[in-house]
Structure formats: structure tokens, C-alpha cells
């Protein structure tokens, strides 16, 4: 054995030991800190404090959005070459399969709740109404963006047709797709917005995308476009619009499928 190597090895031992100890200490301290963070994340009181920031965000964005500025609209050349579909791609129910097979001729959009004249509208009736076309950016909560061209009925027209009753504050969208388990056991996607967003000129019930009938993966036959909020608010496969004074009676009580899973009700950021 080379004595130099042995000498070297002997000399290194205390360093190695110290280094090992330091590494172990750092790893221990690190995992303690991380465990502390995870515990803090799961602490209901801390969680409630952190959620106060959402109210601040909503209040300040309401302040700058009260005059209903429009989301930026793009040109045809800005369209995403491929618009990524996300969430449900194909509702699983037998009813949906039948409606799809019948090209949605038998499909109806119900409008009920706090309205003077409940509605049951066919796709043809919706398409006969005055439409709006807009090329806008879709922002997913995950961080990606896609630009698409949407054509549909402004939600305000549909709401005015039904006539809001006093006390109406929220518009709830009930959908045909089942993305996961929900408290009411239906497993159906739902979303809710308030009247300020409901009456925004760019808030439309879209039946066309990029110049064609809305594809199944993007919510055929009808989806919501609410251009100043994130993707999970853009409910797909909408078949019932409920006007209500609250949304707390539904499922987890947070006003939407993803909201019940911890995401903000106000998705303007």
C-alpha cells in the first residue's frame, strides 16, 4: 500500500467526518424547515390568514376593472397553431354521447334560478341571437397561454332574456363533464361568476372556436369565455345556467370544481 495514500486518507478522515456531520446537520435542519413549512401550509389558521390576500386582490382588481375594460384582442396571425385542450376532453355520460351523435339538435341550455322567465334554449336559438367574435388569450392556472378565436352569445343577452330577479348576485354554470368526485356525488364540473363579470361585453357563451363548431375537447356545444380570469373559470359543456344569491349551497361551497380543491374563486391573477 502506498504510504502517501494512507497518510492522506488518515488526514482526510476528520475532515470527512466533519463534512459528513455538517451535511447531516444541514439535511436535518433543511428537512425540519421543510416539515415546518408543510405543517404551516396545513394549519387552518395560517391558511385563513393567507386567504385574506385573495380578498385584497379581488377588491383591488374590482377597483381597476369597474369600468369594464376589455381584455386585449389579437389578430388572426396571432392564433396559437395548436390550442391545447385541458381538463375534460370528452364527457363520459350516455346522455352526452347521444346528444353528440344527434349533433346537439336535442340539446338545450336551461336558464333558471332567480330569473323572471326561465329558459330552455336550443343551439339554433342561441346561434340566431346576436353574436360576438373575439380573438383572446386563454391563461391556464398552470402557466401556459394559448390564443383562440371565439364566437358566441354575450351572456348578458341570455340573462336579459330570462330577466334577473332582485337578489340575483351570481351566475352558476352547470356542466356535463365529470372531472372528479364532488360533494353532491354527481361529479359534475361547475363554476360561478358574479354579475360584474357576467355583464362584461367579452363574457360570451361560445359555440364556435377558430371558425368552426366548438370541438368536443374544448367543450361542445357551449362553453363560457370570461376573458379576464384564468382557464378553470372557462366552464366547458355548459348545459344549465343558474342565477342565485349565493353559491355556498353547491358541493364544497367554494363556487366551483377547482375552488372546492383549494383554488381561488376569483381567478383574475
Amino acid at each position, binding site marked *: 500500500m502506498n504510504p502517501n495514500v494512507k497518510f492522506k486518507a488518515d488526514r482526510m478522515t476528520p475532515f470527512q467526518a466533519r463534512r459528513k456531520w455538517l451535511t447531516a446537520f444541514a439535511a436535518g435542519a433543511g428537512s425540519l424547515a421543510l416539515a415546518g413549512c408543510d405543517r404551516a401550509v396545513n394549519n387552518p389558521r395560517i391558511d385563513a390568514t393567507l386567504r385574506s390576500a385573495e380578498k385584497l386582490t379581488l377588491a383591488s382588481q374590482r377597483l381597476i376593472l369597474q369600468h369594464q375594460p376589455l381584455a386585449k384582442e389579437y389578430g388572426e396571425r396571432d392564433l396559437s397553431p*395548436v390550442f391545447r385542450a385541458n381538463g375534460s376532453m370528452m364527457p363520459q355520460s350516455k346522455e352526452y354521447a347521444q346528444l353528440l351523435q344527434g349533433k346537439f339538435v336535442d340539446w338545450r341550455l336551461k336558464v333558471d334560478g332567480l330569473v323572471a322567465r326561465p329558459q330552455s334554449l336550443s343551439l339554433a336559438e342561441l346561434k340566431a341571437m346576436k353574436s360576438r367574435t373575439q380573438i383572446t388569450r386563454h391563461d391556464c392556472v398552470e402557466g401556459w397561454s394559448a390564443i383562440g378565436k371565439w364566437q358566441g352569445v354575450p351572456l348578458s343577452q341570455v340573462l336579459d332574456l330570462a330577466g334577473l330577479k332582485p337578489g340575483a348576485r351570481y351566475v352558476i354554470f352547470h356542466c356535463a363533464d365529470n372531472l372528479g368526485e364532488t360533494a353532491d356525488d354527481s361529479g359534475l364540473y361547475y363554476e360561478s361568476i358574479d354579475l360584474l363579470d357576467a355583464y362584461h361585453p367579452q363574457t360570451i357563451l361560445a359555440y364556435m372556436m377558430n371558425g368552426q363548431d366548438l370541438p368536443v375537447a374544448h367543450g361542445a356545444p357551449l362553453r363560457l369565455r370570461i376573458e379576464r380570469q384564468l382557464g378553470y373559470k372557462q366552464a366547458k359543456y355548459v348545459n344549465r345556467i343558474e342565477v342565485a344569491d349565493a353559491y355556498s349551497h353547491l358541493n364544497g361551497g367554494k363556487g366551483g370544481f377547482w375552488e372546492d380543491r383549494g383554488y381561488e374563486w376569483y381567478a383574475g391573477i
Partner: protein
Amino acid sequence: MTTARMPSGTIPRAAPARKQLLPRHSALVRLTHWINVLCFSLLLMTGAQIFNAHPRLYWGEYGADNDHAWLSIDSLQNGSSVRGVLHLGSLTFETTGLLGASKDEGALAARGFPSWLTIPSYQDLAAGRRWHFFFAWLFAINGAVYLIAGLVSRHFRRDLLPTTSELAPKHLAHEVVTHAKLQFPKGEAARRYNVLQKLSYMGVAFVLLPLMVLTGLTMSPGMDSAFHVLLDIFGGRPSARSLHFICASLLVAFVVVHIVMVLVSGVWNNLRSMITGKYAIEVDGDAQ
């Protein structure tokens, strides 16, 4: 010290250098500094959590899976094993263990940044966003207080704005060389920030941190509707997201250098000055 080499007794009046405690940082600077430390740490780690939901970065007005990403952290599944790969432009790096695939409860799992860099340590985008936005508010308010107070009290003009002579290339070169040799100003010169400190603090306080706020706001569809100009400045939401990431990386680089400098230029003195406000400098014994 030159006095130490002289035979004792030959110069009786030569007194040894002594330390003098001087006021260094105002209470407001100290308070906002430590709030900033808390906010930056949490924003960075919750930011890594949010990034992990879609570990790809783009330029332009749109960017999703089918579009070209200038940076992506990919997790390549091969049967039951997973490999982590970082794509940066046309370069590819194997990053298994750190990026794209890292240990999660003992086994390699697919995730962008490793669990020890994210809050919470497990994948939870909703919680990451909740924490990020809370501390973003605190960070922005804290930063606004710092900036307004620094302007009103003339702290920026007095302590951070470099003088013309400090910006002379010769002086800058001299500072870079002495910093590289880890030689730091002593005595009178230590009363003020040196020019490299001034420039880096100004770059952080007036460029990088405000850019973090602005690029962060540009990712909000609500803000974009109210201020289309944000999209014009940064060239789109995906670009703003990229710049948010780049500025955060530059801030991490600043923090690393900052901490090294704190450590090598007198860690206890530096820490004391940012806690109690008092900073010790060496003055000649007979100087008053």
C-alpha cells in the same frame, strides 16, 4: 499595521487602531430588509412550486406544450424509471436528481424543482399560489415603504447614488480587483458603501425587484385587461413569465454573492449593523 513593526518605545505616541461603532442602517432599512428576506425566500420557494405545474418557458403572446420553449425541465418516463433533463435553447443537460427527476420519499419522482426547493414540499399548485400571492402583497407593500422612505429621507441620494469619480473606469476596475482579492475598505472608506455595493443594491432595488412586481402583474389576466401596456412592455404574458423567472434567477445570484460578501467581510459586524444598526470601523488611535 505599520505601527506593529516598529520597535516598541521609539514612537511613544503611536496608539493601536481601535474600533469605533458608527450608526450604519436606519431602523426602517433594517426592518424592510428582514421583511424582504422573509418575502423573497417564501416567494422563491412558492414560485418554484408554481413553476413546477408547467416547467416550460416561452417568448411571445402565447406558449403551451406544442409551442417552442426556450427553457424546459422535462421528466422522461421509461417504464418505471424517470430521467430529468434540462433543455436550454439547443443545449441539453442531464439533471436527474436535481431537475426533472428527484427523490421524493426515497424514490425518484418526476418533478421540475426538487421537493426541498418548493413550498409546500409536495405538489400543490393551489397552496403554492395562495402563499405566493400573500407574500407578494407583503413584498410589494414593504418595497413601496422602502422606496418612498428612501426618497424622502434622501437615503438613496446620500448613500446609494454613486459619485462621478466612483464611476470612472479606473476606479471601477480597482474596486473589482480588490473585491476579487477579498480586500475590503477600512477606516474612513468603510464609512460608506463602495461603488460595487452601490451599483448592485441599486440594480436590485430599482431594477430587479420592481421588474419582479411588473412581470408578476403581467401574468394576471385581470391586470392585463386594465393595463394593455404591460403586454406591450414585456411582449406578452409568456414573455413576462420568462422574465419573471430570469429576474428571480438573477436575484438568487445576487443573494449568493451578497451572503458570501457578508461572510468574508466581517460576518458579525455586518449582521450587527443590519440588526442593531451599529457598524464598527477601525480608526487610527489618535484620530478623533
